[in-house]
C-alpha cells in the first residue's frame, strides 16, 4: 500500500509538529532486575532464567540495588528531582512474553521527575523537558516461526525466549516538544543521540540500538500552524537507529499532513516503523487499548533513597558529554561547526585519546577525519572499529613530526598497522619506510637524475626553474617515495643552479 504523502517543506506551511519521545534503555547490570540471573546478550534461549523471571507460582521479586542506583544517576544527569519515596506498580496485561501476566514497572510514583536535556541542531539550542525517568523490567522475546517475514502474521507457531525477561529497563519520557518546526525530526534525533551519549558516559548501559539495549518510541502530532492547539498523536514503536528516529518523525509529519489535508482525522494509535522503506504502518489502536489496571506492587517495598546517598551519587557523576565538548572545544580552539563535525563523525573520543597519547589536536583531527575516516568509509565500518588505536595514531603523527616519514610513507605505515604488522614504528622499520637523509643512496639518485636528463637541466639553467619538478619526480621514483621531496629539491638546486 502506498500512502499519500505531503512534501516535507509543504507540511510546514500549514502545520506545526509536536514530538515526544519515550526511550527505553537496558541497564548494563550483571544480574536481572528482580532475580540473580545473568544479563549477558546472545546466550542460548532460556538458559538465563529462574523461577522468578519465568514467573513460576510462588516466586517473588527482589529489587536490584545496582539498577536503582543507575536509574538515579541517569535522573541526576538529566537534571531530575529524585523522589524521596517511590513505588513499583504492576501493569497488567496478557501476552506470552510477559511471564507473570503483568510487567513490574512504575506508574504514578516514578523514581526521577522533572528534568531536561538541551540539544543543539544547526547551532540552535532546543530544550527537551523530561517528564520522568522510571525503572521497570524487560519482557521476553517472541520468535515467530514458519512465516515468510518473521512477524506474527503468517507464522504457524511462536517460541518465547525468556533470557531478556526481567532485564532492568529504564524508561525516559519527555514532555511534548513544540516549536521545533522543520527541525523537529532533527531535534528528535539529536535528543536520542545526546541521551545515548549521557548514558554511555555514565557507564549505565552499552546503549546499542542494533541489539535493542536502547529502543525508542516516537510520538508525533500535527496542529494547524498558528492554532495554538495540539493534534492527535501517533506513537511509532521500536525505532531502532538514530537515523530512523529522524525518518520516523519526518514520515509521520508527511503522512499526517496528507490525512489532515484530505479532511481526515488522525487515529490515536501505535504504528510500526519499517527500516527498509522508512515508512510506518498502523498497529493496534489506542482507542481499543487495554486497561492496564495499575496498582502498587505488593511484593516489593517502596524505594526511599537516602538524601545523603543521592548527594554522593550526584557528586560522583562523571563529566557529561556537553561539558566535555565545551571543554575540549576550548582546549583545542575549535569552532562550533568543527566540533559538530568531530562529534558527528564519532571521532571525539578517539581524537581526545590520541591527543592524550601525545599528538597535537590538529594532527589528531586531521588523521581521524581524513585518512582514517576514508578507510572506515571504504570498509563500511565505524571509525572506532578500525584496527588502529589512538596511541598508534599518535605514534604516526610523531613519526611525521620528527621527519622519519612523510605523509605518504605514514599512510603506508598505517597500511601495515591495519594489516596487523604491529605498531607504526615497527612497521616503518620492517617495511623500510623511513625517509632518506642526504645519504649516498640519495646523492647517487640525484646525480643519476641529472645525468639522465640533460635537456631538462638545460631548461632549468635557461631560467625555467619549474622544470626542476620533473627531476624531483625522477628522484622520488627512483627512491620509491622514501626521499623527502624538499630535501631532494634543495640538492637538485645546489647541483643544477650551483647556488
Amino acid at each position: 500500500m502506498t500512502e499519500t504523502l505531503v512534501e516535507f517543506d509543504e507540511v510546514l506551511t500549514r502545520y506545526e509538529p509536536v514530538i515526544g519521545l519515550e526511550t527505553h534503555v537496558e541497564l548494563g547490570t550483571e544480574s536481572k532486575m528482580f532475580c540473580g540471573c545473568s544479563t549477558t546478550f546472545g546466550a542460548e534461549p532460556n538458559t538465563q532464567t529462574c523461577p522468578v523471571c519465568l514467573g513460576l507460582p510462588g516466586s517473588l521479586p527482589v529489587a536490584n540495588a545496582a539498577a536503582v542506583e543507575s536509574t538515579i544517576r541517569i535522573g541526576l544527569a538529566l537534571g531530575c528531582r529524585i523522589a524521596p519515596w517511590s513505588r513499583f506498580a504492576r501493569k497488567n496485561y496478557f501476552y506470552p512474553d510477559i511471564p507473570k501476566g503483568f510487567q513490574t514497572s512504575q506508574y504514578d510514583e516514578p523514581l526521577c521527575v522533572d528534568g531536561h536535556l538541551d540539544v543543539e541542531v544547526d547551532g540552535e539550542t532546543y530544550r527537551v523537558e523530561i517528564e520522568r525517568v522510571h525503572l521497570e523490567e524487560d519482557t521476553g522475546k517472541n520468535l515467530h516461526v514458519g512465516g515468510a517475514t518473521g512477524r506474527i502474521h503468517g507464522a504457524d507457531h511462536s517460541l518465547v525466549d525468556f533470557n531478556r525477561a526481567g532485564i532492568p529497563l529504564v524508561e525516559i519520557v519527555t514532555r511534548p516538544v513544540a516549536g521545533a518546526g522543520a527541525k523537529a525530526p532533527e531535534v528528535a534525533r539529536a535528543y536520542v543521540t545526546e541521551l545515548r551519549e549521557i548514558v554511555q558516559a555514565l557507564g549505565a548501559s552499552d546503549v546499542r540500538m542494533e541489539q535493542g539495549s536502547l529502543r525508542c518510541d516516537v510520538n508525533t502530532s500535527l496542529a494547524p500552524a498558528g492554532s495554538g492547539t495540539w493534534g492527535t498523536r501517533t506513537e511509532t514503536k521500536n525505532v531502532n537507529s538514530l537515523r530512523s528516529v529522524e525518518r520516523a518523525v519526518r514520515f509521520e509529519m508527511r503522512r499526517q499532513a496528507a490525512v489532515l489535508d484530505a479532511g481526515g482525522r488522525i487515529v490515536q494509535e501505535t504504528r510500526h516503523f519499517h527500516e527498509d522503506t522508512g515508512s510506518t504502518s498502523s498497529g493496534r489502536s489506542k482507542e481499543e487499548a487495554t486497561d492496564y489496571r495499575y496498582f502498587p506492587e505488593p511484593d516489593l517495598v517502596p524505594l526511599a533513597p537516602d538524601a545523603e546517598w543521592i548527594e554522593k551519587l550526584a557528586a560522583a557523576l562523571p563529566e557529561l558529554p556537553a561539558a566535555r565538548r565545551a571543554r575540549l572545544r576550548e582546549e583545542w580552539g575549535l569552532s562550533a561547526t568543527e566540533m559538530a563535525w568531530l562529534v558527528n563523525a564519532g571521532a571525539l573520543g578517539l581524537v581526545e585519546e590520541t591527543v592524550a597519547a601525545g599528538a597535537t589536536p590538529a594532527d589528531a583531527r586531521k588523521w581521524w577525519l581524513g585518512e582514517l575516516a576514508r578507510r572506515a568509509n571504504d570498509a563500511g565500518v565505524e571509525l572506532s572499529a578500525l584496527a588502529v588505536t589512538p596511541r598508534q595514531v599518535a605514534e604516526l603523527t610523531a613519526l611525521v613530526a620528527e621527519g622519519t616519514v612523510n605523509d605518504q610513507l605514514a599512510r603506508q605505515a598505517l597500511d601495515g598497522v591495519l594489516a596487523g604488522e604491529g605498531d607504526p614504528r615497527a612497521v616503518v622499520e620492517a617495511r623500510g619506510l623511513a625517509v632518506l637523509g642526504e645519504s649516498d643512496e640519495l646523492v647517487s639518485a640525484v646525480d643519476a637524475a641529472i645525468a639522465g636528463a640533460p635537456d631538462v637541466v638545460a631548461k632549468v639553467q635557461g631560467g625555467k626553474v619549474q622544470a626542476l619538478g620533473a627531476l624531483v619526480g625522477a628522484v622520488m621514483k627512483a627512491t620509491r617515495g622514501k626521499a623527502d621531496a624538499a630535501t631532494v629539491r634543495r640538492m637538485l638546486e645546489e647541483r643544477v643552479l650551483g647556488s
Partner: protein
Amino acid sequence: MSDLTTLTAVELQAALAAGETTSVEVTRAHLDRIAAEDGALGAYLHVDGDAALARAAEVDASGTAGTGLAGIPVALKDVFVTEGVPTTSGSRILEGWRPPYSATVATRLRDAGTVMLGKTNMDEFAMGSSTENSAYTATRNPWDRDRIPGGSSGGSSTAVAGHLAPLALGTDTGGSIRQPAALTGLVGHKPTYGSVSRYGLIAFSSSLDQAGPMARTVLDAALLHEAIGGHDPRDSTSIDAPVPAVVEAARRGAGGDLAGLRVGVVRELGGEGAREGYEQGVLDRFAGAVALLEAAGAEVREVSCPSFGLALPAYYLIAPSEASSNLARFEGMRFGIRVGDDGGRDVDEVMALTREQGFGPEVKRRIILGTYALSAGYYDAYYGQAQKVRTLIGRDFSTAFDGGASGGVDVLVSPTSPTVAWPIGARVHDPLAMYAADLCTLPASLAGVPAISVPCGLSEGLPVGLQVMAPALADDRCYRVAAAVEAALGAPLTDRLLERAA
C-alpha cells in the same frame, strides 16, 4: 508404647530423643492412619509414603531425631511449592505440575529434619472458608464428617485434628489458618505479616498472605513457628528481625499466670450490639474463655475498634484485586494444563480456554471482582477506598494497644469464628454467607498483626476457638495467652475426639 499418632510433637520429640521410637516408626504410623482414614476424610491431595519413609530413615541414620523437630512428620498445605512434588494450590489449572524449586518454609522444615508426609487439600488458591472450593475433593471435619473442616487450610486442619499428622503448615490470608483451627479444635497461628517467608507460597493476596503453624497444642504450634520463622532475603516484604520467643512464651503461659496482663475484648466482634450472625454457643464459650483469663489474673476490659465493621468489604476488594493480578500467570504457557492448543487456535484463545477450564467458579468470581475494582474509573472508589479502610483498621489496633488516656491493652480477644463448623454444602450457593465466616479474623489480616486461635470448648459437640490478637512482632503474647487458656481447660480438645472415637 501407645499409638504414635496420638502423641503431640513435643511427646514425639521426647520419645525420639529417648530412643523409644524412630522417625521411621512414627512416619509409618501416620502413613498407616492416612491409608485407613483419609479415603473418608480427604485431608491429603498427595502422599508419597516411600519418599517419607526414606526421608525418615535418613533422619534416623543421621542421629539427629529428637533434636528440635528432627524426625517428626509434618503435612504441608498444597499452596507451598515443593521441588519435584506435585503442587496444585487446589486448582485444576496446576494439575500435574512438579515445581523445580521449593518454598523457603519447606526448605527450612526439611533442613530442620522434619519428614514431609504429603500435601494437604485446600480451597482453590486459598479462596474459601470451607475447603469445598478445592478442584479435587471435599475434606470432612473429623468431629462430624458431614461438616466442613473450615478453610482454606481445611486439609491441614483435618490432617492434624484427625491425627493424620502431628503438625501442619497452613496459610492465612483472611483467616485461613485460624478459622479451620477453630472449627476442628486446633491451635492455629497467623504470624505478623512479613515474619515468615512467602517465597514459594503460591500467592493469593500478596499483602495479606502469611504462612503459619497448625497443631494440637500451643507448644507444638510454637515449635513449628520457630522452625519456619525469620528473615528471608528472597522475600522483599520479609522483616529482618529475630523470631519472637514463641516457644518460651508458650511454656511460660502454660504456668497459667496472666497477672498484670491487660486484655481487651473487642466490642465490634460479638460484643454488645454486634452479635448478629454469632451463634449463642460460640458467645457462651467465648465468655467462658474471658472468665478464664480473668481467673488467671488478667485485667479484662472492653475495647471499641469502630473500623473493624468495615473489614469485610475492604478485604473483599483488596484480596480479589491482588488475586486478579497474581493469578494472571496461570495461562497455560509455561506450566500446568493447557487447553485447546490444537494448532488451529491462537495464543489468546488457548489462554482463555485454559483459564476457563482450569479455574473454578469462586476463583473466577474473585478475578472478575478484582479486575473490576482495579479498572480505570473505579480504582479510587473501590481499591483506593479499601486501602483507606485498611489504614483505619490499623489505626484502631494502634489505639487499642497504645492506649492514650485510658492506657492500652496487651492483647485483644474475640471469637475466632462466629459459628461452629457448618454442614457440607450449606453455604456453597451463598458466597456472602461464606464470606461472613471471616468476620472476626479479617481485621488482624488487614493490619498485618499476629493472631492465634486456641480451642475454648465445645458448642453442640463442635469446637469453638478463641482468637488472641497482638501488636506486630509481639507474636509471643498470642502464645502466652493461648497457653494459659489451654492449661486452664486441661487436655487438648482433640483428645476428646479420640475418646469419642474409641
